[in-house]
């Protein structure tokens, strides 16, 4: 009898779960934080994007990463490019029912900068906290230390918190009158105005979200009102959950093979988009023999791009230059550069013209420990260069050590294989951040590239307010850089994600995290 009862209860549970209408998203990295001043990785970014509203939002519905209006209804930039004035949308409500105002925007920026974690580095040195002014209830003004064109794109990482709620919930801390700036409170609670409210949060297993009825963008039928954001590390388990229909969508971090298998399932869509990421081999332009442009050209022309893309990356688009193609598309532009192509005859000729004896060239190629794609790419380059008579030695190096090596000219390696994701939705990220002398010393500037003309163009671009003129300058700079061969630009790899066919509205714009905003999805069963 007891046994029968048990079976009955088990059956009830089984059917009970089969008919539930939850939207289940699977993520393989844990949700480290839901505090919008602390997030750095994709999963915590997902949490923050769904619970809070950023000041500006990428134009996801147009498929573009260019920032558009959101909490900020409009903005103006002073002629010298240093003063930004934002008009805040009226009537946005926080989850506790109070209204979001300019005061909250200013407080959010100050909190981000004071805590010095997460994305605060975007504004470090650019903006001093005392230069954030509330002009009236719906107007806020930021005065920058110098003109900084990517300022608005960087604001996609400024999420607005409810100042009054946080001030009521301060704990002891090292920030004077602000105590701990509400860090303890925001560890498990929210102070947002976003489309969803967290109802349950367990860092390593589950984030449960429920729709916020008074959300300012309103709700339509078929939108998702209840989300189970589950953390599952094992790829095989993720696959079983997707194939059995126990999950609606999964993250981008699985191996290409898993997406390949899922694509065979008639009920599952696997979406592939070129990512806003650059995979390239930086060449140290300051040390012989790579200080000779003809040697760099010869190496770039010897490399087999097609094999790298087809056999190693299993599909990708070839990089046209340092700026990922997606980043130009965001601003309605085509790249004006065309990358490099393999041409062994040309490579041999260039090497001859350089006057350097190929048999005297021995180069080191550094790549991070465990980077199998970087290792295979290195082996490919090794065999390509052997045809020119150049020796290449592969060195697998811990990532922390590569960062250290890049900090001084003596230790910077000859060639390094680097994956570089767009830091903010603007070409400036991969131009100023990689080719302005002030950036030298990081893993992004192993080329140690210096060209006064490019330096001048980049500085001019940053302080140009007119967007079109500004983009022209950035494109001109990229053309000059590509002509100098500081890197072997290989590819913008693929971003893959899988979901059930009945999920609609998914749009990848190339900006980390913003593709998984549950508000954008509709369920059509």
């Amino acid at each position, binding site marked *: 009898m007891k046994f029968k009862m048990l079976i009955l*209860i088990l059956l009830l549970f089984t059917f009970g779960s089969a008919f539930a209408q939850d939207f289940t998203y699977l993520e393989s990295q844990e949700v480290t934080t839901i505090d919008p001043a602390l997030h750095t990785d994709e999963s915590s970014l997902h949490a923050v994007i769904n619970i809070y509203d950023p000041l500006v939002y990428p134009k996801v519905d147009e498929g573009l990463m260019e920032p558009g209006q959101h909490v900020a209804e409009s903005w103006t930039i002073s002629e010298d490019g240093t003063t930004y004035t934002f008009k805040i949308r009226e009537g946005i409500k926080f989850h506790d029912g109070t209204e979001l105002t300019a005061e909250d925007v200013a407080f959010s920026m100050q909190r981000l900068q004071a805590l*010095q974690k997460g994305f*605060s*580095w975007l504004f470090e040195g650019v903006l001093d906290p005392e230069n954030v002014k509330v002009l009236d209830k719906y107007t806020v003004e930021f005065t920058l230390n110098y003109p900084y064109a990517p300022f608005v794109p960087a604001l996609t990482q400024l999420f607005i918190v409810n100042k009054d709620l946080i001030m009521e919930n301060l704990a002891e801390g090292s920030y004077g009158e602000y105590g701990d700036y509400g860090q303890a409170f925001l560890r498990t609670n929210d102070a947002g105005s976003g489309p969803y409210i967290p109802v349950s949060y*367990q860092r*390593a*297993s589950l984030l449960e979200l429920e729709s916020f009825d008074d959300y300012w963008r309103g709700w339509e039928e078929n939108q998702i009102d209840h989300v189970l954001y589950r953390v599952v*590390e094992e790829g095989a*388990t993720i696959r079983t959950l997707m194939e059995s229909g126990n999950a609606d969508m999964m993250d981008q971090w699985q191996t290409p093979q898993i997406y390949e298998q899922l694509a065979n399932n008639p009920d599952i869509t696997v979406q592939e988009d070129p990512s806003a990421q650059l995979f390239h081999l930086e060449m140290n332009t300051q040390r012989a023999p790579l200080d000779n442009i003809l040697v760099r050209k010869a190496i770039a022309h010897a490399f087999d791009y097609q094999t790298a893309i087809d056999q190693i990356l299993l599909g990708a688009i070839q990089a046209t230059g340092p700026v990922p193609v997606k980043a130009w598309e965001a601003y309605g532009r085509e790249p004006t550069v065309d990358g490099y192509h393999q041409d062994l005859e040309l490579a041999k000729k260039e090497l001859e013209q350089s006057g350097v004896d190929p048999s005297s060239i021995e180069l080191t190629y550094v790549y991070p420990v465990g980077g199998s794609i970087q290792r295979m790419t290195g082996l490919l380059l090794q065999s390509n260069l052997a045809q020119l008579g150049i020796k290449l030695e592969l060195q697998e190096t811990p990532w*922390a050590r590569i960062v250290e090596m890049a900090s001084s000219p003596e230790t910077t390696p000859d060639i390094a294989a680097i994956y570089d994701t767009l830091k903010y939705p603007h070409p400036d990220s991969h131009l100023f951040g990689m080719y302005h002398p002030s950036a030298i010393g990081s893993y992004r500037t192993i080329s140690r590239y210096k060209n006064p003309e490019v330096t001048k163009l980049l500085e001019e671009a940053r302080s140009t307010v007119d967007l079109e003129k500004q983009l022209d300058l950035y494109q001109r700079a990229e053309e000059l850089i590509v002509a100098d061969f500081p890197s072997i630009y290989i590819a913008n790899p693929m971003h893959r994600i899988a979901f059930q066919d009945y999920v609609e509205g998914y749009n990848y714009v190339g900006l980390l995290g913003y593709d998984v905003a549950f508000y954008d999805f509709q369920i059509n069963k």
Partner: protein
Amino acid sequence: MGTWQYIIRRVIQLVPTLLGLLLLIFFLARVMPGDPVKLALGPESSEEQVEAFRHQLGLDQPLWRQFIDYVVGLTQGKFGTSLRTLQDVSVDVQQTLPATLELVFVALIIAIILGIPIGLLSAINRDSWIDDATRVISISGVALPRFWVGILLQIWIASALGLFPIIGRGPGIPGESITGFYTIDALLTLNFEAFFGALWHLALPAFTLALPSTAQLARLTRASMIEVFRQQYILVHRAYGVRPRKIAWHYALRNGLTVVLTLVGLTFASLLENAVLVEVVFAWPGISAYAADAVLAKDFNAIIAFALIMGLTFMLANLIVDLLYGMLDPRVRYG
């Protein structure tokens, strides 16, 4: 010496052992290569950010000073700030340890209630087809990797048949948790639906975890019982015409179990060690998966706390086993 005195002495002996463990793991965790602070703040973090965070964590202090601060914190129940969760590790432990212990205890119970009877059955029916069958099952039980068995169970039992959930621990018990063990909390609040829900979620991961230990216990019980069956007093019982079943259960089992008990203690430790693979496959929010992530992120405070807690649990399990010896075999005296 009485049992209580023995217990107190053993507990006092735990302190220097734990201190030694702490000393070792504290310095090991700090000399690991790579900068964990930089790692925690992300590759784009600036020097200023890293320095500020390092200061906040007290990592700019000399090593001996950090150690003293840590020990002082320990006496107040603090394990230091986690680099990943940015909260005190004790909070993380509270959230994750009960899940693992619950899984391990249930697995241990499964291993005992399946393993010992199977072993006994083989010993009684030695060299029969029953013995052969259990031998095959036992050897495969030990040989098959847990994570692989887990994935197969997910595909066949959970996904295809829909009998059990594929992942997770279930929704838990409404309201404040009392012990953190879902099953116990459910029983304490007389919430039987939640109790069965918790068991239902536990079934597959606990079985997966228990499988190799069940097999080991079965093999050892068999060997131990066969040894006991050879003893002369068993022969005497047989000669008197006592029924074989009564001999096995009543006279032989108790003597055979002392050896098995040693293995039960070791089994507990091995279940804790092996929980990580099962936790990862079943997305079980336990401390083993937490610790594995901590090692990858060089989250040293979490690593130290995990080592200490595992050490303590292991020592306590040994103590309990030693006490159980005395109950099973009156000849064992504490001294």
